[in-house]
């Protein structure tokens, strides 16, 4: 059985046996949970379905968060995507799907924490996009979530996936690294390439702080899901082009942990620093509490 203490272990196990990372993780998890592979595949497929439903619900232009701060932007982005924008319709639609899920989360919608609620838009923006754009089969999309999950388990064990512990790099950064590995698998890349994509995504979000305005999972969290998707795609494209990360993935995870440990408390979900401490953030906080009093 695997112990999920290094991504290298996952990659070499897969390479050695001529399997994908997802096949290795599915087989191992079935053993560890003492359930059949069919059974846990079905449970993962259900999670994919919840992601798809959240995309759909989040694209409602009238959606607003409980605080009233956010909502409705993903619908705008989806409209804009029709024009092709600067980078093409596919990419803009992928961003819109991820944003939809993150907005739906703020509106108390049903989502899959992946790995957390704050970063719940990144896997839908990437994996669900490939599925809905006809670039992979449903079975492949479900399997890609096992790849993402396997990588996430290593990061959770060796570093952290909580903003309060490691900053946003640990939440959106981890989600993006998980998505990058999943995308490489869906793009036909090797397990080793998936590891490189994971490393590249982590490197590009290293140091990102967790500074939620008014303490809510909305600003800047929703838009950080967007950058997490963009970074996942670019990391996957690099890896699929045969470009390696110079720093091995497990050392990137270790570095992320060290950066998280040395981050001051004010930048780890306490809403005392970063964007949460800007004049506009204080203004929004005041407005929100005024609204609260008004409702009372």
């Amino acid at each position: 059985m695997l112990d999920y203490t290094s991504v290298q272990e996952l990659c070499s196990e897969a390479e050695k046996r001529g399997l994908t990372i997802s096949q290795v993780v599915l087989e191992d998890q079935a053993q560890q949970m003492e359930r059949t592979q069919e059974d846990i595949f079905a449970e993962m497929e259900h999670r994919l379905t919840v992601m798809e439903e959240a995309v759909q619900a989040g694209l409602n232009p009238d959606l607003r968060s409980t605080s009233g701060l956010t909502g409705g932007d993903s619908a705008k982005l989806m409209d804009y995507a029709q024009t092709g924008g600067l980078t093409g319709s596919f990419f803009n639609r992928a961003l819109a799907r991820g944003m939809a899920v993150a907005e739906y989360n703020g509106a108390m919608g049903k989502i899959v924490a992946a790995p957390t609620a704050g970063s719940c838009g990144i896997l839908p923006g990437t994996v669900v996009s490939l599925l809905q754009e006809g670039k992979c089969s449903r079975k492949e999309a479900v399997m890609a979530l096992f790849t993402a999950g396997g990588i996430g388990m290593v990061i959770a064990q060796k570093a952290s996936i909580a903003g309060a512990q490691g900053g946003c790099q640990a939440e959106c950064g981890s989600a993006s690294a998980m998505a990058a590995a999943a995308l490489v698998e869906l793009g036909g890349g090797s397990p080793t390439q998936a590891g490189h994509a994971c490393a590249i995504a982590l490197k590009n979000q290293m140091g990102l702080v967790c500074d939620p305005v008014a303490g809510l999972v909305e600003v800047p969290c929703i838009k950080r899901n967007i950058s997490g998707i963009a970074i996942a795609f670019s990391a996957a494209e690099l890896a699929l082009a045969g470009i390696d990360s110079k720093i091995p993935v497990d050392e990137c995870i270790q570095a992320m942990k060290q950066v998280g440990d040395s981050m001051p408390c004010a930048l780890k979900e306490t809403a005392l620093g970063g964007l949460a401490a800007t004049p506009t953030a204080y203004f929004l906080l005041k407005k929100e509490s005024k609204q609260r009093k008004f409702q009372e």
Partner: protein
Amino acid sequence: MNVFDIIGPVMIGPSSSHTAGAVRLGRVAWKILGETATKAEIQLSGSFAQTYRGHGTDKALVAGIMGMHSDDERIRHSLELAEEQGLSVSFETVEIPDAHPNTARIQLTGQSGAKASIQGASIGGGNILVSEVNGLSVSFTGQYNTLMVLHYDKPGTIAAVTNFMAYSEVNIGNFRLSRPRKGGEAVMTIEVDGDVSDALMNSLKILPNIINVVLIRAI
């Protein structure tokens, strides 16, 4: 940890600590009460007090008190549902010294007039730490299946409970007894590996000196 802890849980947003964890705290209080609640007095401290409306912590706690799970889409409307079902709810923001930033105190009154209270914190990722039940100090996280055995402090009670667990081949990972005074009401908090069967629950409940047995399942 398994793959569904990472790709999951399926939950109602926006925050695993302020929403999903809050549902679980509410549910623990409801389970300890053991019947439908008609009155809930809720005190919020720290970050819970600051951001409870924006995060829907109020709705989440009430949903839990009504027996909902953290993926129930009715959570969003739980305050209205509570009103319809005759559950009166009050919120108060307080300072609890030395408490975790996300701490709530919940006091429930049930249909029969029974009362139950808990104090607990949502400590991240939907995990909780319950520190007080009916005024008795306890400590459990909800990461393991946890049995709370409310009983009278009489000789042989603990042995009887653990014996029954041994017969059912349930392994104890952590055991804590809280007993404010000799011979009075006491509570065992027992974290176990694996599942606890209904049969075991039923046999524990009818043991002498047992007031109530509550199973809080792991996430």
